[in-house]
């Protein structure tokens, strides 16, 4: 375990290397053409922050961050490739809007952060070396803060159910024929009349690219 109160030169140097790598790769995420590269650059940023947490003595936190983020970014990579044009990154492209406003907002937040970091007053109570941080985390999670931990668990379960419901091809109107989500049943099954505002799909060519117009009743 590293002594946080009097770090060695090695710790200082590693911190700045990791920090520089984290910020640099975080910046490259939005500057690269390839979706896979962007995702894994974000992963590199996370890995470096995880390494910094390890330097700080958060043994479980650091490794857990490494682990969680790796899996998360792997999942992300699939979605990036699935939902972005130019998945292979062979053509240069810029897909941004309101770039000036966004950059300004980013700089303002950065400036605000610096103000807090430099002029803010924080208590100086460094982590004592040899403190059993993992054991403490475990007893905290299963002891005094169990309710918080449990709420997080419930939130995660709700997330699982919610994401399955949102992304499932089956919806409350049953199985969908294509990729358009399921359609509400017609009011009159014989005539095939639909509820007000719902336009049933008539053509199957889908040439106009609005295959989702028939998807109603959920709003």
């Amino acid at each position, binding site marked *: 375990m590293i002594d*946080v109160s009097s770090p060695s030169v090695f710790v200082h140097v590693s*911190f700045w290397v990791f920090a520089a790598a984290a*910020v640099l790769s*975080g910046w490259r*995420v*939005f500057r690269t053409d390839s979706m896979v590269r*962007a995702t894994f650059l974000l992963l590199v*940023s996370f890995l470096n*922050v995880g390494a910094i*947490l390890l330097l*700080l003595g*958060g043994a*479980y*936190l650091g490794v*857990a961050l490494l682990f*969680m983020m790796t899996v*998360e970014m792997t*999942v992300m990579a699939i*979605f990036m490739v699935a*939902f972005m044009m130019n998945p292979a990154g062979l053509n240069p492209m810029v*897909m*941004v*809007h309101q770039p000036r*406003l*966004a950059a300004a*907002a*980013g700089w303002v*937040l*950065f400036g605000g*952060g*610096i103000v*807090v*970091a430099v002029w803010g007053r924080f*208590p*100086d*109570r*460094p*982590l004592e070396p040899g403190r059993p*941080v993992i054991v*403490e*985390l475990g*007893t*905290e999670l299963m002891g005094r*803060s169990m309710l*918080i*931990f449990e709420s*997080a668990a419930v*939130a*995660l379960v709700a*997330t699982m159910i*919610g*994401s399955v419901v*949102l992304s499932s091809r089956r919806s409350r109107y049953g199985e969908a024929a294509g990729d*358009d*989500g399921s359609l509400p049943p017609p009011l009159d099954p014989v005539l095939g009349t639909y509820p007000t505002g719902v336009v049933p799909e008539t053509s199957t060519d889908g040439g106009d690219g*609005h*295959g*989702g117009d028939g*998807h109603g009743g959920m*709003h």
Partner: protein
Amino acid sequence: MLIVAAALLGLGLWGALAQQSIVMLLMGIELMINGVMLAGGGLWAYSAGGEPKGQLLLILAMAVMAIEMAIGLAVVVALYRARQVDMTEGLDSMGR
């Protein structure tokens, strides 16, 4: 430490606001939470004396990140199914 965290936060906000694709927007939010995690870890180690509640906060930040991504990606899938859009410009109304 906090300066680096602020840099990550700023970069994340820039990315989230400037990117058109919803998936890239999510990446910006992730980067902001990354900055929050770094700031939290730094304060935990230097100012809170290794108080276990600080670790709990970071675990919760990780949970937030996971939830954000899962729901975010599910919304993208649902939106794509419903309207064939994956860009924020495609969403000019909350209705259909």
